[in-house]
Each structure stands twice: as structure tokens, then as C-alpha cells.
């Protein structure tokens, strides 16, 4: 796992790319996000869901 702490005001291109309006905002694998300083368990839950998305529904 890699963790970057990014100053949003110094890197406006990144802030725009990830729609950062309020901090802290954590982007996970470029695809999911957690806004705010959430409790540890909630963060881990979001992280697990982001990394292991539920299987897609199949018609067959």
C-alpha cells in the first residue's frame, strides 16, 4: 500500500481531477473516495469495499 498526503492548494490540477472541495478527502485507487475525517472502522470498511467491489449481477 502506498499513501500520499497531498496539499490540495499546491497541486490544483490534482484537486480538480479528484473534485477536492473539502478536506480531508481520501481517494482510493483513483476510483473511490472518503470525505472527511471518518472513524477508523468506517474508513477501513470503505477501503475494503473500494478494493473488493461486490460482484456484478449476471443475467444467466
Amino acid at each position, binding site marked *: *500500500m*502506498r*499513501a*500520499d*498526503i*497531498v*496539499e*490540495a*492548494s*499546491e*497541486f490544483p490540477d*490534482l*484537486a480538480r481531477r*479528484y473534485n*477536492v472541495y473539502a*478536506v*480531508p*478527502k*481520501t*481517494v*482510493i*485507487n*483513483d476510483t473511490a473516495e472518503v470525505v472527511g475525517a471518518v472513524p*477508523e*472502522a468506517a474508513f*477501513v470498511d470503505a*477501503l*475494503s469495499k473500494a*478494493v*473488493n467491489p461486490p460482484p456484478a449481477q449476471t443475467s444467466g
Partner: protein
Amino acid sequence: MGFLSDQDAAFVRKRLADDMKDDVRLVFFAPSTGGLALPGEDWEMAEYTRTILKEVAGLSDRITLEEHSMVSEPEVVARYGVDRTPATAVIGARDYGVRYYGMPAGYEFVTLLDLIIDVSRGTAGLTPATLDSLAALPADVHLQVFVTTT
């Protein structure tokens, strides 16, 4: 000391002495070294960052500052995987994959201190349940935590 007051410096020195365990390297990447300003690079921000890191390193025998150039040291840049400056890799007994992008000023100075101490201790005080969940994650997870000094 240019960044911290004498009182703040004493507080930081004590906190580092009390809470650190392993030595920590602050591996800093600026656009260039030696004061050469490249077009488009925010060398002023990089210089302020360098000043902050130098002061912190000066407050503990267990912290050393290494300075590198994004421009002239591509092999070091590749080794630490940084892609923009100013960047600081906080390295303890091993590289835990933590990078600080930007200037750790204002409230974020405390973030940097917490980071140094956590890396030094090799732990962030997480619960056992969290550690179990993290162990189950695939290896390639990238977190980007956006903060601001304002």
C-alpha cells in the same frame, strides 16, 4: 530557527525524544538543488519546505534529512516513486510507502510530526480488527489524502 519559535522547538524536540523509536530519514525532493530555478517549478515552495524539514531534523539526532533533485537524480526519483515536487518520503526501519507532497506548514506541520513518529514506531496505533482487514487487501492499494494548510 526561522520557522519554529524557541518554545515550539522545545516542545517538538521533547515530543520527538519521548515518542520516537527507530531512526527516520526525511528524503526530500526539490525541482533542483543549489538554487537553480527552473521555469514552471515552484522553487519558493520547495525552499520553504526544505527549511521546515531542516529545522525538524535539527531537533532530533534520530532524524536525518537527505536532499535530492527531481531533475538531476532520476534514479533516486524512480526508487522512491515520487512524481511531483516538493515531495518528502518519510522512511523508518523500512519504506512504509508514505509520501508527503507539498509544504507541511500550518496545521499540517503536526501531520508531519505524527507521520515521523508513526513511521519511527512502525505502527499507527490501529485496532487489531483494522490490521486484519488491511492484511486481507491486495498489495497494490494507492491512497491519496488531500489536505490543506489554509
